[in-house]
């Protein structure tokens, strides 16, 4: 087996606050193979974005990596100095954020932003970089790219802006793209197109994707594997088909409860009774136990580790038992 593009081992992220240390990520482990699409799902606040920020070394203080390791193509990247990390961001790992309306610098033409990104990472001159920028814009489906390259971000619609953001993320041919809810802020009518563009380009280039989304429909159609996160932990991870159709963890079972049929528009995640605990009040034992329909006494005591169950791995001592 070849070395995975990304491997995370037992990642911990803490926030030091006045009221003590909050453990936002609590031993996350997963890996992404070359060209693979890993879907990451979970309720808001589960730690999905934080995982992304930790990977690219842009956790905002007081957040910091408190333990664990991150490997990119087999080389450890957590704890690298800022300048080394800068050469990884954009060059090896592209990032796409949620809101295309605010991701671009409003005061610079999209071409200037593309060219700057390209020239930061690749040894091209202005003219070559411009040609590359135009072809990137064409790749992401922007009509008349040789004209639009000189437009300002506000002259594009939301969907078109997110295409520009994708072009920026792919500008230096990264090995991995972290897409953090890339369509959440967009009009429903363009969401599918944006995912399609992302999927197609990454497949063509063999780029691996960490796709964070709330949209189970998108996961089902796009991802190879899926990780379900809950309260700063991975609750279940496995091939998309088995996690979606035969979820092993009771939380995943709740989430997958209502995957819409493919011919309907994908809906948001189904709500599970109760809400995710706040960071300051994560219960002892399994973090999900207060909401779990399968809870037993042992769940109050020990935090379950990921273990093989069915075709995937689940962090539950009763994994696999039907709800």
């Amino acid at each position: 087996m070849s070395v995975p593009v990304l491997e995370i081992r037992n990642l911990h992220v803490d926030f030091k606050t006045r009221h003590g240390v909050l453990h936002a990520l609590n031993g996350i482990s997963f890996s992404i193979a070359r060209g693979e699409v890993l879907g990451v799902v979970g309720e808001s606040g589960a730690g999905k974005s934080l995982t992304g920020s930790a990977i690219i070394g842009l956790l905002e203080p007081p957040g910091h990596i408190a333990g664990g390791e991150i490997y990119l193509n087999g080389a450890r990247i957590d704890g690298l100095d800022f300048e080394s990390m800068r050469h990884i961001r954009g060059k090896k790992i592209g990032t796409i954020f949620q809101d295309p309306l605010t991701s671009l610098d409003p005061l610079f033409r999209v071409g200037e932003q593309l060219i700057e990104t390209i020239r930061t990472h690749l040894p091209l001159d202005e003219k070559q970089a411009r040609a590359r920028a135009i072809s990137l814009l064409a790749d992401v489906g922007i009509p008349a790219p040789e004209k639009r390259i000189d437009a300002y971000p506000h002259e594009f619609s939301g969907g078109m802006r997110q295409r520009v953001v994708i072009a920026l993320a792919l500008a230096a041919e990264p090995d991995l793209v972290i897409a953090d809810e890339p369509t959440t802020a967009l009009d429903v009518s363009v969401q599918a197109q944006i995912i399609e563009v992302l999927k197609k380009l990454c497949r063509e280039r063999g780029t691996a994707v960490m796709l964070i989304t709330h949209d189970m429909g998108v996961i089902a159609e796009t991802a190879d594997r899926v990780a379900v996160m809950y309260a700063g932990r991975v609750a279940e991870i496995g091939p998309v088909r088995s996690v979606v159709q035969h979820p092993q963890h009771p939380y995943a079972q709740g989430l997958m409860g209502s995957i819409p049929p493919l011919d309907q528009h994908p809906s948001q995640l189904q709500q599970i009774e109760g809400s995710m605990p706040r960071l300051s009040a994560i219960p002892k034992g399994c973090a999900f136990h207060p909401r779990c329909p399968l809870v037993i006494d042992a769940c109050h005591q020990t935090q379950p580790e990921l273990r093989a169950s069915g075709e995937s791995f689940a962090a539950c001592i009763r994994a696999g038992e039907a709800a």
Partner: protein
Amino acid sequence: MLAFILRRLMQSVLVLVVVVLLAFTMFRFVGDPVNQIVSLDTPAEQVAEVRKSLGLDDPVPVQIMRYLYHVVQFDFGISYQFRQPVVDLLAERAPATLELALMSSLISLLVGIPMGVYTALRRDGFFARLFQSISLIGVSLPTFLIGILLIYLFAVTLGWLPSFGRGQVVTVYGRWTTGFLTVSGLKALILPSITLGLYQMTLIMRLVRSEMLEVLRADHIKFARARGLTTHSIHFRHALKSTLVPVITIAGLQLGSIIAFAVITETVFQWPGMGALFLKAVQNVDIPIMAAYLMIISALFVSINMIVDLLYAFVDPRLRTTIKN
């Protein structure tokens, strides 16, 4: 774009007309101008004659039109104190005030912006904190006190710089007197322009700092970091540009107030500018000078405002499009 400029121009003219009306009202209703000309024992017929010759018997609208007619030709009447045309008095003193204001604005921008950027980028550094504390003093100390302290330190105690006046001035282009061309003129400019610019400088510094801190948290900066751009480019290309857009407005308005607030500094440093003239006019109820000063300052504010708006459109592409449509 042209429509936008025209619209702004119309608004500006409207504001100025209102100001002229105000100035006229001062003339007409603050004291009787005739009393300024005649003495207590002037015969009544003669008083009436003066009144008539000044056109004060005409209906008010006629008087207003006549006043407006004179004002647009820069005819602001004759000073009661000096018995000279107000326009000559002001023209003679305008260079002093404008050079002082220019110097103060330059200081406030050239020092205030870098200090603001510095304190934003080195938020927790020792010097950033120091600047931040010092700036509080700049904002809260009254101008005259700063002026007096500076005079005490640099003029009285150290004897490095003059404590009053413009030094040696040179006349250029016929009437403009400048202090920029002589050593003593430049030396004389230092203390007053620091005094006048200090408040604006600290204001600009604090504004730039808070604006920059906010921009550094913005999504597009986060995305710029995620793209691996250099810190230099993120700070000084992307963040600084976003920071300066709103700062332009404030800085423009500051320039207006620098000229208006020059009154105090000019008094402290016996600076022969328009502000000092205005103060003397107030003491002596010299209405023509007061009115002219009011109008000139308003005209300045209005033009600065317009320039700022245009500049804003020039810097911010979003606004440019809005204006185009």
